[in-house]
């Protein structure tokens, strides 16, 4: 049976959703909507989608979708999510899931109460490298639960022109988020930690400040540098770093166990195993570099293999996530991202924003 999919919000990220949905067999986009009808029309025209509407009510009524992708600015996620669930649709929410942990919990409770699935587009947890990392951790490579994690999620303003466009427009939706720029960007990096941290109420210590780059542009409200320390009840710890000035603009995750560690680089799609054992004497200076070189070479081969198999699209993680989500709907299995992780990510973000006093 073909799964009927609708999309709410026809901005930039909606294009990516359409691209990936169209690569998945057994589903069809039956309609799109945006409160600016011209935007809905351009999306439907470019992708030859029949129905376009200027509100969700009409989309639901006219096209009877089974799944709704919500790709609007985060301020509207809760309300639109509730509306879609109320209409009996499963929901895939663009990140960040909602504005607050309370909203997150309410949405998930509502979905569960209705027997519907809901998930969030943390697609970076479904890239090839992220999946390999998960498999290795599950196989016990770390030698037990993570002892410590480091999640880097850096951001490049690109040039002053882009920064000015965002910063100068006081009504830009990103500025109106409780956590501003950070709220729209850090959830990928926080979600990686949420996946592996234990306990539901981790301790969060956050420091945020405005970089000199932004200050030089006359901006003193938007925080673009963030350092966070997280500790769970069983003493697993994590550092989270968000920076607009750090180079390279790392998007990476490092997880250390009692025996070994794993370093994943999202942009390069590399996963490197770091041995905890040491070679004797001078051998430690010579052998590990060769072993790392071998691993990097192997990563390059793996990436090329995926490319040649036509499975290395820039948003390959999104396809995997959507595919898994649709499968969970068809087979009535748990959604691909555990609800605990979604709630924990929201909770940690709430704690961060509370401390850096937006």
């Amino acid at each position, binding site marked *: 049976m073909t799964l009927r999919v609708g999309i709410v919000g026809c901005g930039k990220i909606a*294009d990516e959703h359409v691209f990936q949905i169209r690569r998945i067999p057994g589903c069809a986009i039956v309609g799109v909507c945006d409160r600016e009808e011209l*935007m809905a029309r351009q999306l439907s*025209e470019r992708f030859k989608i029949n129905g376009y509407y200027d509100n969700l009510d009409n989309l639901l009524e006219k096209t009877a979708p089974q799944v709704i992708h919500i790709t609007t600015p985060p301020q509207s996620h809760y309300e639109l999510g509730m509306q879609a669930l109320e209409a009996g649709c499963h929901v895939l929410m663009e990140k960040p899931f909602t504005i607050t942990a309370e909203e997150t919990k309410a949405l998930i409770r509502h979905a569960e109460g209705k027997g519907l699935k809901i998930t969030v587009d943390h697609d970076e947890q479904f890239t090839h490298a992220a999946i390999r990392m998960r498999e290795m951790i599950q196989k016990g490579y770390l030698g037990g639960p993570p002892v410590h994690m480091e999640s880097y999620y850096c951001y490049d303003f690109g040039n002053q022109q882009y920064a000015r*466009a965002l910063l100068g427009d*006081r009504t830009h939706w990103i500025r109106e988020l409780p956590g501003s720029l950070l709220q729209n960007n850090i959830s990928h990096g926080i979600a990686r930690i949420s996946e592996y941290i234990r306990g539901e109420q981790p301790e969060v210590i956050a420091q945020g400040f405005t970089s000199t780059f932004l200050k030089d542009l006359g901006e003193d409200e938007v925080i673009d540098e963030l350092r966070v320390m997280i500790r769970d009840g069983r003493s697993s710890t994590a550092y989270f770093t968000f920076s607009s000035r750090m180079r390279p603009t790392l998007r990476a995750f490092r997880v250390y166990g009692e025996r070994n560690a794993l370093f994943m680089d999202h942009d390069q799609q590399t996963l490197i195993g770091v041995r905890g054992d040491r070679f004797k004497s001078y051998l430690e200076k010579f052998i590990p570099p060769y072993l790392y070189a071998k691993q990097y070479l192997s990563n390059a081969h793996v990436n090329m293999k995926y490319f040649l198999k036509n499975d290395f699209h820039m948003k390959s993680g999104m396809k995997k996530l959507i595919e898994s989500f649709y499968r969970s709907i068809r087979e009535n299995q748990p959604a691909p991202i555990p609800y605990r992780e979604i709630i924990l990510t929201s909770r940690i973000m709430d704690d961060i924003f509370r401390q850096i006093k937006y």
Partner: protein
Amino acid sequence: MSTDDIINDNDRVLITGANGFIGTRVVDTLLRYGYRNLVCLMRPSGQNSALMKIILERGSPPIEICRGNLLSREDCDKVTEGVSVIYHLAAGRGVKSYPDAFLNSVVTTRNLLEAAARTNRLKRFVGVSSFSVYSNLKLRRRDVLDETCEMDREPELRGEAYCYAKVRQDELTVDFCGRNGIPYVLVRPGTVFGPGNRGLPGRIGIDLLGLFLHLGGSNRIPFTYVDNCAEAIVLAGLRPGVGGEVFNVVDDDLPTSREFLNLYKKHVRRFRSIRVPRAAGYLLCSLWEKYSSWSRGQLPPVFNTRRWSNDWKGNRYSNEKLKTRLGWKPRVSFPVASKRFFEHERGL
């Protein structure tokens, strides 16, 4: 200022995108023509140094600089109040993102036109578009591409968000103005060059992994120097009897791609380039397009036969209509224009 102009020097004139590459020159030309009642709309953010420089050079006339966002209907109402002519240059240049380009070109134009319609005193709306809206698929090499050519009917297949947005913007302008009785003119510049617009245009070639592929060969490049282009735009808003017309803007004495590339290398900097024969360029674009389609976007469809046709087929261009109907002539000759451009490039 000419006595034939549809407005006089007291009439209020709005210029959107007034701090942009062409916008500043449009303001300068209007000031040179004697129009002083100007409203210059700029984005809420961004520096206004380019515009301020022009204003200072012209003796600081009391022109109005407004910060605003054309996505805001309130801002549109505010800036169109009492306006007789609108020069609409603001556009979304989101190179990769279709929605961004569309939002900042089409939706903004719709908002501006709706506000203009409410004022009920607009004498002309000048929409600044681009050569990229044309389809030359039915033209042969060396055929003349002019205002009679059809617009691309499937601009979404070109792989260029800007082209798609500009086609839809022009369609919206024609439709809206027709329905609401707003007199309009569309101006479609070719490749605008001059100090402030860096690098070599795509019609000459592309930089691929550090190697410059020269694809233009012996094609004439539809250059228009920014000052010449600005003058054409200004005239399109002033001259009587041209409502509903479209004007392409190209200069005289257009250089070939090869000539311009050689001049650039001589006067700006030396770099390695490889001449790609026309057939090979077409084949590369065709293969890229097919792979992109087969792989469902593993490589984005940025190179395709439509783009090849538009950028590298090699048509000829005409500015006859511009000269006869608007009385335009390029004030800056190509040798002078290129000298200024190269000097600026060298100084960067």
